[in-house]
């Protein structure tokens, strides 16, 4: 049995050890083909997913060539004439680009950095609650909002901020105040509304991973610290935080990679004509100009989308390189 396994591994081992491609001898190739034929069922299973990915994911990438053409409805994607980088130039030279990039980046970076500490604090709090059942209860309540749909979430935000009988108005009314500001109409307030509603919705869910990290900390550290008379805050600072930091950094790095892919559905819903100057992002703009508009500007918006995809892709690659360097963590 053992020898059989060893024999099977021989042709593959050098391939894995050295990363450079080693050409297989015809004999080894034959062996490998035979092995592949033996597991044909596995490949058969993969046929359907393969077709699915080819059609629904790779084909649109091919179709993105329309960004380099002038789309004509009669000719379709394939027959339209090539125009080179015309649409990219138009986008870069239009004043719109900087506004869109600035809004996209400022909102997503704001969300990323603001959203980082809350799940950590929450997880620490759950850890030190003296009544365990109560803690569990609070924990399950805090991640419930994560499953609220984006439409309902945006609806809750708008209704809560409604100056006429909204939640904030009602609360202030109890204390004799009155909420008269229409926050949704102030462009400068948009990013804060977006970010803080996101924190409300996702902090509990984000805390789960930190709770897992805290639970994995060896209790002997805490026991020893307690015997030595460390206070709770000292233990948090010197034991828990160092354990949490790698996960925090990882989340930060991964978030940086996704910085262009902010959840724009919520932005689209919260957007109105009053706050559009600060709430228009790349994706919302593409949607409005390319699909919702009565005369969709297909090539131009495809170019904008492709521009975004390309930068996002580079970001993910770079960020993953950094993540790999930083303590062997990687998303692939």
């Amino acid at each position, binding site marked *: 049995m053992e020898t059989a396994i060893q024999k099977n591994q021989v042709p593959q081992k050098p391939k894995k050890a050295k990363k450079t491609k080693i050409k297989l001898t015809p004999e080894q190739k034959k062996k490998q083909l035979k092995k592949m034929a033996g597991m044909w069922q*596995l490949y058969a299973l*993969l046929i359907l997913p393969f077709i699915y990915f080819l059609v629904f994911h790779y084909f649109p990438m091919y179709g*993105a060539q*329309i960004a380099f053409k002038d789309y004509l409805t009669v000719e379709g994607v394939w027959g339209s004439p090539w125009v080179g980088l015309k649409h990219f130039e138009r986008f870069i030279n239009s004043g719109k680009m900087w506004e869109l990039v600035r809004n996209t980046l400022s909102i997503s970076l704001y969300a990323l950095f603001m959203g980082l500490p809350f799940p950590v604090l929450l997880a620490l709090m759950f850890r030190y*609650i003296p009544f365990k059942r109560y803690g569990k209860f609070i924990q399950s309540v805090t991640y419930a909002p994560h*499953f609220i749909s984006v*439409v309902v979430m945006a*609806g809750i935000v708008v*209704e809560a901020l409604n100056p006429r009988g909204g939640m904030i108005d009602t609360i202030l009314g109890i204390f004799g105040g009155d909420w008269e500001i229409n926050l949704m109409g102030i462009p400068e307030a948009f990013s804060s509304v977006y970010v803080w509603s996101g924190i409300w919705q996702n902090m509990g869910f984000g805390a789960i991973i930190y709770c897992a990290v805290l639970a994995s900390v060896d209790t002997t550290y805490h*026991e020893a610290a307690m015997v030595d008379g460390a206070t709770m805050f000292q233990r948090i600072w010197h034991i828990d935080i160092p354990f949490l930091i790698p996960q925090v950094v990882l989340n930060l790095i991964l978030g940086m990679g996704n910085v262009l892919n902010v959840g724009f559905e919520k932005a689209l819903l919260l957007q109105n004509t009053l706050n559009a100057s600060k709430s228009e992002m790349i994706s919302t703009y593409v949607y409005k100009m390319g699909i919702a508009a009565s005369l969709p500007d297909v090539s131009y918006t495809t170019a904008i989308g492709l521009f975004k995809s390309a930068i996002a892709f580079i970001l993910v690659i770079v960020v993953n390189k950094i993540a790999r360097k930083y303590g062997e963590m990687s998303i692939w």
Partner: protein
Amino acid sequence: MVETNKNPNTEENQEVTYVKAKQKSKIKQLLAPEIGDEVGSSIISTVFATLILLIIIYPLWFIVISSFSSGKAVAAGEVFFLPVDITLDGYKAVLDHHLIMPSFKNSVIYMVCGTCINLFMTVITAYPLSRKDLIGRSKITLFFAFTMWFSGGMIPTFLLYRDLGMINTIWVMIIPGAVAMGNMVITRTYFSKTIPEELLEAAKIDGASDIGYLLKIALPLAKPILAVITLYYAVGHWNQFFAALLYITDQDKYPLQLVLRDILFQGETAFGGDSGSLSIEDMAILENLQQILKYSVIVVSALPMMIIYPFVQKYFVRGIMSGSVKG
């Protein structure tokens, strides 16, 4: 305790007090783990946790009580802790609405069909990729995973669906996103980490084929992760809004989320378009009704999730945990 008081200064007794302190802390851990001796700081964390609980729960509670109150009371800011002028008008309006109930049905159909397709596709993708002996495994994985990081974009995708004739059909709601990479990865990890390889070897010796092994042995063992991804997919379908916004324009094919958007953001009313013939008082009543209709429809849309949530939340947590183990 009495013993330690007898000779407090001997070395032996110091040892005893040390051990006792350790035991004491262990007992404390059982009662209230990780708290130590500090009453003050544990009070602080309890108070903060309660505050968080209120911050999370109150907006939800506010929606529920507003949906049962009269629109007038809500607009006047009188609804704070309990419903005022309890009425079911909001829910009546939901039932009478010409779009809400049909779209609720559509959403259920999209969710059930879509989740079935998701499960099937995810399993047939994840299982072969979980097999370490699969030749070309890393290349195939890269082929799938690449789509996570790069996409053709919204417009070419839209054109594709249009050319395929999928616009305004059920297919556009259930086929795109058939394999979510995140769910595929946690399923694959579960297959490769949790199910011992010896099982496969034993099954092979007994003459099982790869597909036979998957159906008879691997799948039954993978039930926990299947539960997790079923829930993730189902929630995803139920909450799906953007695909519908892009690809569904027929009102009778609308999912609930799209109707919700119309009601919440575009002032879509329950009462048809002939508001011109109404008196000013009627208009005011209608406006108030419109307000509580918003709250009621939020409650109705969240209902299915809220009912199953307490039962399934432990699975969601488990999904995160298994997802955090990379394989």
